[in-house]
């Protein structure tokens, strides 16, 4: 007997249909990664101790590539509306982040063998943890329900806590894990509390229904109705936002970042600063744009709402990240602060694009920026994870002294990643920043709201400071005298080579031919499921724009390929 209770809730009723075959496709990328992780546990448990496990890196990378590829195959087979009884979405937005997470994870696992040899910790579990985390990130980006979202968040985070404490011989690694774990669990608790309050107000955990019910409550013609739950909504919304802000390391929830990044193994940091951030951004956009999409909650021109919180977080992150990064002596710590600054740039994109439904499509700047950021950051940590000094991986600027000359490949690659992160053309970072800031300027111009232009200026100004500390790395690598007594080494395994060159290639490609990635990002936003009717109109316009653009592109290609006339 199916109890009446189960069908009383209209959300339950609407969604309680057995999944059709097409809906199972939503699981494919995540499932591939999870199954791969299981296979790796199996393979690793039969592994004789003391033998090399580099092939596991390749194995995981190929599997991740497969998962990414499956996401790409699914690209044109997305479904409208949530699938699996409203638990997941299968849209291009989620697939974009799936590809991004697979990319970050794949690049990070390929760097591992070098690093593991440097720290003498060659274990198979590393790959498994990364894979679990990637699966979590994928599901998180696809989540259509607070429950899926939260569990996926934990699936993503718990392996990362373990990765932070992976270096069992290193006390600092243990400390990093402890800090990350305690603060992670703490912020997860805060976030859960927020979710529970929102659940109480709306009676549902489904993002779309939360959004609808919230609008209804807020626009209740009887002011008493709105007043009774208004504060609860605000508190809940803010607590949920704080959970995401913690994961993407935005000021004032950034405080764990430097410590954790310093103590954790370098390739894992490369992973956790990109894929985790990407997953959190994806889920945050889902929650903010679906559940809290109501103009009153959004704020901006309609009063004070989450948009303003994002706005101030963005400004504070950019300034604090860039200023404090200058003062660092430890390269990993510097990169931690720079990742805070990057979170700020991302939030600039989020704030500007959320200013009004008509700018909804501008969120593609955030997606594109994440892609460029992923390529550059994973690469930078990759270079750090192949270089060793006195039997341990390099960490400080002094450790890097002279290594650029000694190992030209590492030096050149580091230069490339640093220039990209600093936003020097023609690397990916430049196009990403340009795209984000120009969109902010455009939004400011269209709405006449100068605060967005001010935000863009703060961003440009603070990124000038970036030139200083990114260049400092190169200065150490090229222009400082190497410590003669130190025993430096470069463990360049073939897999690390693949990873580094892939990231370098990607960084360059995103700078010189950003078209394909931008188009993908734009398509993702056009396909973003679950927003309100007004936003859907904007999406429809965007779809037409894309079509026109493609036609224009095709026609211009005809001209370019045309035979010259006399």
């Amino acid at each position, binding site marked *: 007997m199916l109890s009446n209770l189960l069908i009383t809730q209209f959300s339950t009723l609407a969604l309680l249909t057995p999944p059709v075959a097409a809906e199972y496709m939503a699981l494919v990328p995540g499932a591939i990664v999870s199954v791969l992780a299981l296979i790796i546990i199996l393979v690793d448990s039969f592994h004789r101790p003391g033998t090399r496990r580099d092939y596991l890196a390749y194995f995981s990378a190929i599997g991740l590539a497969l998962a990414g590829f499956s996401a790409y195959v699914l690209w044109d087979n997305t479904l409208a509306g949530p699938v699996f009884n409203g638990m997941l979405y299968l849209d291009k937005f989620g697939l974009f982040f799936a590809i991004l997470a697979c990319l970050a994870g794949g690049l990070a696992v390929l760097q591992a063998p070098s690093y593991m040899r440097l720290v003498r910790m060659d274990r198979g579990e590393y790959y498994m943890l990364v894979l679990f985390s990637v699966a979590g990130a994928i599901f998180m980006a696809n989540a259509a329900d607070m429950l899926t979202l939260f569990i996926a968040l934990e699936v993503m985070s718990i392996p990362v806590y373990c990765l932070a404490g992976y270096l069992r011989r290193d006390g600092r690694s243990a400390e990093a894990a402890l800090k990350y774990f*305690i603060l992670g669990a703490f912020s997860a608790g805060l976030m859960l509390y927020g979710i529970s309050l929102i659940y109480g107000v709306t009676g549902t955990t489904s993002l779309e229904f939360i959004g609808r019910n919230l609008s209804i409550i807020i626009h209740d013609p009887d002011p008493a109705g709105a007043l009774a739950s208004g504060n609860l909504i605000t508190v809940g919304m803010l607590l949920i936002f704080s959970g995401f802000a913690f994961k993407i390391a935005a000021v004032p929830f950034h405080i764990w970042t430097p410590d954790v990044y310093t103590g954790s193994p370098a390739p894992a940091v490369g992973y956790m600063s990109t894929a985790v951030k990407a997953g959190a951004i994806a889920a945050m956009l889902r929650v903010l744009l679906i559940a809290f999409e109501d103009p009153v909650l959004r704020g901006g021109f309609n009063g004070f709402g989450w948009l303003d919180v994002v706005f101030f977080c963005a400004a504070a992150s950019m300034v604090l990240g860039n200023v404090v990064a200058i003062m660092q002596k430890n390269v990993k710590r510097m990169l931690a602060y720079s990742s805070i600054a990057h979170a700020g740039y991302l939030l600039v994109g989020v704030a500007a694009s959320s200013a009004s439904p008509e700018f909804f499509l501008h969120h593609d700047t955030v997606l594109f920026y994440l892609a460029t950021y992923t390529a550059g950051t994973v690469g930078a940590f990759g270079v750090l994870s192949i270089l060793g000094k006195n039997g341990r991986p390099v960490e400080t600027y002094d450790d890097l002294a002279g290594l650029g000359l000694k190992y030209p490949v590492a030096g050149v690659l580091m230069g490339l990643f640093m220039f990209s992160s600093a936003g020097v053309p023609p690397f990916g970072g430049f196009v990403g920043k340009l795209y984000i800031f120009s969109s902010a300027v455009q939004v400011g111009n269209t709405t006449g709201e100068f605060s967005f232009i001010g935000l863009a200026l703060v961003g440009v100004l603070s990124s000038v400071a970036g030139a200083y500390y990114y260049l400092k790395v190169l200065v150490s690598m090229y*222009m400082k005298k190497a410590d003669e007594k130190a025993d430096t080494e470069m463990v360049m395994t073939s897999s690390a080579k693949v990873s580094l060159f892939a990231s370098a290639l990607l960084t360059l490609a995103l700078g010189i*031919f950003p078209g394909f990635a931008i188009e993908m990002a734009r398509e993702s936003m056009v396909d973003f499921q679950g927003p309100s009717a007004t936003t859907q109109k904007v999406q429809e316009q965007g779809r037409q724009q894309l079509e026109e*653009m493609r036609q224009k592109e095709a026609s211009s290609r005809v001209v370019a390929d045309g035979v*010259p006339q006399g």
Partner: protein
Amino acid sequence: MLYQDQFYYLGLIVLMPLIGALINGIIGAKLPRKFVDVIACGSILMSFFFSLISIKALVENATHVKNAEGVVETVYGHLSYTAYHWIYAGDFGVDLAFMLDPLTSLLLLLITGVGFLIHLYSVGYMADDPSKWRYFSYLNLFCFAMLLLVLGKNMLVTFIGWEGVGLCSYLLIGFWYTDDEKAAAGQKAFIVNRVGDFAFLVGMFILYYETQTLDYIQLKEFATNAALIQQIAPVAWLIVLFMFIGCTGKSAQIPLYVWLPDAMAGPTPVSALIHAATMVTSGVFLLSRLNWLVTISYEVMAVIAWVGALTAFFAATIAITQNDIKKVLAYSTVSQLGYMFLAVGVGSFTAAVFHLMTHAFFKALMFLGSGSVIHAMHHEQDMRKMGGLKKYMPVTSKTFLVGCLAISGFPLFSGFFSKDAILWGALSNTHVLGVVGAQEQIGDITVMRGEPSAVAQILTTKPLELISAGGPVDVNWLVQITSWGTFILAVITAGMTAFYMFRLYFMTFEGECRADEHTKAHLHESPVSMTIPLTVLAVLSLLGGLTGWPHFIVHGLHFPPEGFGLFFEHWFSELFQVTNDYRILTRFGAHAYGWEAVATVSGLIAGLSGIGLSWYMYMKNPEIPGLIQERIKALHGFVQQKYKVDEFYGFVFVKGSIKSGEGMTFFDKYILDGVLVNGAAALMATAGRILRHLQSGNVQRYATYITLGVVLALVALMLRM
């Protein structure tokens, strides 16, 4: 004939150096050394040929129109090539596109032509360097970036080139990175340039904000369209100001010129190519490209003129006191760039570009000559240890003399004509908004800022018709002061230029040889690959100026008005049309040949007396300089130490002592505190202290801050109600 809009050769011009750079950069180390040379020089030579073909096409493409007065005017238009849609999403679109017009074609010839000569020269100069492949790779990469800069059809492509040349300049200055000082010089250049680039970027953002486009062709429509100009007129001054700040970084003007003299740490051919002929002039190029925008921001023009003139003057005074042969040339370059900006500031864009060209010839020549000397002297750069090199290095000394005569403005040498054009530009500086009568006719300038339609009105009508029929006009105080002040400074600078250049020449090539015996024994003329470029550049320095005679000579000697004598003016007349319309070319009347002759003669006198004084002090009575130096020791020391500008910056920007010799201090100076100026250091220290407290490493405090963050946001959100 190819499509005018898809002119492939423009792409090829840019592509060639990139291919060269990639080949040399990736497999250069494994290639035979000769092969590296061939690839580097060959790629740039190909570019040169493609440039010639493109310019030929541009000329053939030109249309001839009869204007209202019945004079045939040539309209060159432009060729363009769109490689692909670079960033294209929604409303924001930028193509990777190139454009060729008269202004670009001049720069194109300089970059590829002079660039080729310098590549050729480098073959000999860098013959012994083990990482020559890297050098050539960088050099080709630089050419690529510079070509992007000048060929870019929109401002973003220009900006990429702008950043790219800065990057390559950094790489090349720090080429011999093993030397700490040189490495520091490279960083200094990069950082100072970044500060400038930031201003450029901000200017670009404002421009985009106002116009919604970065395409030069579309932007140009703003100049002639009354409706469009209304949009941009109120903020034009802001854009130009930011652009100019960007230019002060790249083109080494006050106050950001400090990097250029230090940049001489790089190999000499690099100094010749980057820090004399091409990169440093990109500021002039940029302002010329946006000449219509510069023109409507009338007060900023005065600022540009004064900054240019003062830079020219002060750099010249420093150059007099320097003893390092390359430092003299470096300050001379700063000084000459000042001239160009003076020309821009007074609205004589033609003169600015003209001087850009001649300066590229003679300054490249002199840098290469000095490189030849340094090469022969085993990397000795102190002029006090040289002398009498004439007999060891005949070709170098003769070509160098040509260069000196050219820069001193000796009649019929190229510098004579271009400097004369600038002097006349400064003297005749008249802007329609500065004309007293104009104030009554079109209203006060400050009022006009608020009412863009007034600006639009003048811009779209011919101001000459509006105000005067060619007779002398009264100008307001700003124009008066700028005009006379900059003219006098420029004339004095001309004299000083001649003086220090010949001081350099006499100390190096004439008199007794003061080198030690070991060096003396090995003195020799440079190889042919180095002397050929010298000779070619000498010929160019000699003849390059004949394309722009002064009007009074053209008039007086009855040259054909459309002939070669005014080639430069005709070549650029279309490009600077708006500016020339807007600017009353002379406040002395339409045909003030007398005044023009005054400018020419004063320049000539200044130059000749400079040469004479130099001859008197360094050839006739070599003891005099020492005596004078003794007499004004304090002043001389002050000037010799570059007015202690570096120290001043250090004092202003960084509180407390700076450990000298540490490369990092430059960063601290210019980025940390240079950006945030003065109180920044204290602010930073405070911020650091607070953050140190925050980032205590205690996980419980972190949890507190997170909660505090939530509560603060809650307070903000709750209070909205």
